[in-house]
């Protein structure tokens, strides 16, 4: 089982929960999840023996519908809402309930619902991964390198908030859609970043989180109200950066910094997609941070080598990015670009301005960048001290190996 069937169960779980929640109502999210669990247990039993059917989506859809009807029959005496729902499920053909167009809107509706403004950004992403991408609580927790118990609490609380709101987001209401869209874009951006820069040691987890962010962004682009220049910019930055993933983290789980990456391993199809999206993003007047990040990623994608990269242009783009969305990480990247274009001493001077920032304190690549620049200035001891500080902050074995190699480089 590979190719099209990769992650089939996960994605189908998300699709069917989203559809059942439309039928049952948001307050019955837990019921929808139970039904999906039951349908998947049946699939597991039958497919173990018979293999995966020709059309697994259709099989799961019909099974989920039957499980839903059973669940409603069990509830009928207890609850007054069941008869109308049973009628809706029984009278409509499964294809109508779960058709591809419906499925897309269900996905978006759930995605917008998960981005509830009263939820923290982390909770939003956790919910998206759990409900729409079919990650179990443990899998979400391990992707974020957090304890399962804490994640369970967070997800349960977030689901309760959704269920209490009792209504699903209405994706056909333009005003609400436009208001919520930036929150959704931001959640998808953070999901992608979690994949790209996140703490997990597992290369597969990184690739999966990035792939999910890209899949959901693609769904956003299919909706007439979702396909804005800013959404295209978001898609472009994801494709252009994800293109480097195969070279960034190799199969052995080793991390390669940009200058040391084998550019032949960059994914040319994603780069082509990225440039196509970048073109589509160049409409209207809005210049979002995503536009600038996409432009930076595009300069990397075009460059023949790290040395042949237009670092001055990249530094200038970071200037703009800092002006519209300041963050210590952006400042750090800007300093690195300046170091590349104007020399390590200038880069260090820029780094000095963000030295005390609380938000960089736990981030190993801040110290690592300082070490790198000191090393280039020939100050090996200082460099080594920075790398050792970075090592103490490393979040997983991959980062530890990477930083240890840099410490060794100081001693050569």
């Amino acid at each position, binding site marked *: *089982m590979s190719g099209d*069937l990769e*992650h*089939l*169960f*996960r994605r*189908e*779980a998300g699709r069917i929960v989203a559809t059942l929640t439309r039928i049952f109502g948001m307050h019955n999210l837990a019921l929808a999840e139970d039904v999906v669990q039951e349908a*998947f*247990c049946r*699939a*597991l*039993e*039958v*497919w*173990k*023996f*018979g*293999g*995966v059917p020709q059309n697994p989506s259709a099989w799961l859809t019909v099974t989920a519908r039957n499980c839903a009807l059973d669940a409603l029959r069990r509830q009928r005496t207890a609850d007054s809402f069941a008869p109308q729902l049973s009628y809706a499920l029984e009278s409509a053909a499964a294809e109508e309930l779960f058709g591809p167009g419906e499925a897309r809107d269900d996905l978006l509706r759930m995605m917008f619902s998960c981005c509830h403004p009263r939820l923290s950004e982390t909770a939003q992403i956790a919910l998206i991964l759990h409900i729409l991408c*079919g*990650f*179990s609580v*443990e*899998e979400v927790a391990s992707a974020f390198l957090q304890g399962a118990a804490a994640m369970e609490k967070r997800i349960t609380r977030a689901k309760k908030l959704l269920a209490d709101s009792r209504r699903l987001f209405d994706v056909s209401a333009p005003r609400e859609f436009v208001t919520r869209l930036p929150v959704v874009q931001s959640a998808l951006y953070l999901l992608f970043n979690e994949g790209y820069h996140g703490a997990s040691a597992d290369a597969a987890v990184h690739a999966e989180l990035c792939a999910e962010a890209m899949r959901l962004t693609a769904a956003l682009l299919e909706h007439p109200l979702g396909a804005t220049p800013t959404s295209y910019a978001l898609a472009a930055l994801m494709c252009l950066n994800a293109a480097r993933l195969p070279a960034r983290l190799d199969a052995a789980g080793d991390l390669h910094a940009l200058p040391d990456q084998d550019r032949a391993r960059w994914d040319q199809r994603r780069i082509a997609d990225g440039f196509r999206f970048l073109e589509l993003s160049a409409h209207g007047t809005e210049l979002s941070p995503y536009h600038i990040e996409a432009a930076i990623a595009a300069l990397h994608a075009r460059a023949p080598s790290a040395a042949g990269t237009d670092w001055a242009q990249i530094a200038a783009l970071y200037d703009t990015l800092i002006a519209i969305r300041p963050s210590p990480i952006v400042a750090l990247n800007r300093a690195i670009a300046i170091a590349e274009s104007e020399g390590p001493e200038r880069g260090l001077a820029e780094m000095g301005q963000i030295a005390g920032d609380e938000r960089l304190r736990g981030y190993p690549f801040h110290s690592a960048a300082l070490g790198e620049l000191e090393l280039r200035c020939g100050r090996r001891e200082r460099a080594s001290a920075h790398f050792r500080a970075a090592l103490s902050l490393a979040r997983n074995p991959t980062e530890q190996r990477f930083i240890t190699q840099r410490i060794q480089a100081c001693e050569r």
Partner: protein
Amino acid sequence: MNEYVFLYRGGNPPPSPEQMQQVVQKWTAWLKSLADQGYLLDRGHPLERSGKVIDGGKVITDGPFAEAKDLVGGFSLVKARDVSQAAQLALGCPILERGGQVEVRPVMKLDV
């Protein structure tokens, strides 16, 4: 060659869809390897967890309601040289990774 029935008992479904998919993949691979080596006579079927139980008084009741770990969830038919070879084949069954059991029962021959 003799015939053996594999009875699959218990085994917990994994908690996440991704893991479920992996279980399906493992079973498919295991049954295929038995078939490729010529041991599999009939891959068999899964069984519903409950049906009806009819007792001596011809009373029909719902059931059985055994504990999940004791319930037969499915069966296959294999051929092997002897029971110990059949048991060796059963050692590869993915159900063992999820707390389940395989019961290997020789099929008695009807020719006397």
